[in-house]
């Protein structure tokens, strides 16, 4: 999420609102907001209802521990980004969905591994293409 948070102002400039879906509990979510200063709302979906509705996958252990993924984790740690508290489902891969002003899905990115996410620039490009 830190990659996308760098685009927070640009998302506002392009009239893109942002919400986070999380299966973690309210205590963890509040702690996350207070620790990080996140301004986007964290919506609590503890039974994964909307993860499933939007087709967000649960990966295999290989998806989490392939050499490429481990190398990325290693690089993040060297760069000072240490793993924080963990929720209850490490295999959830997540993803991103961009919905247009008419309520239609314009981007449906289902992550193939923990680091597979569209960039903020890609998201803005999709929204700008229909503005």
């Amino acid at each position, binding site marked *: 999420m830190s990659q996308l948070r760098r685009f927070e102002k640009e998302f506002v400039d392009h009239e*893109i*609102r*942002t919400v986070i879906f999380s299966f973690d509990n309210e205590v963890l979510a509040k702690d996350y*907001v207070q620790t990080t200063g996140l301004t986007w*709302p964290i919506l*609590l979906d503890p039974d994964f209802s909307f993860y499933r509705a939007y087709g967000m996958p649960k990966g295999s252990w290989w998806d989490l521990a392939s050499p490429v993924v481990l190398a990325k984790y290693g690089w993040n740690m060297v760069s000072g980004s240490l793993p924080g508290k963990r929720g209850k489902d490490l295999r959830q891969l997540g993803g991103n*969905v961009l919905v247009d002003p008419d309520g239609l899905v314009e981007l449906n990115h289902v992550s193939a591994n923990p680091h597979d996410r569209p960039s903020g620039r890609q998201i803005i490009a999709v929204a700008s293409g229909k503005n």
Partner: protein
Amino acid sequence: MSLVGKPAVDFELPDAFGSVHRLSDYRGQWLLMIFHRHLG
């Protein structure tokens, strides 16, 4: 199965501080939904 071009699935969920959010609250604006892996 891609959902591109289809109506977004409606949701109604509380946030961490108890406010309820619905898809319809965001009608007329672009909405980015980030399905997080885990907080931390």
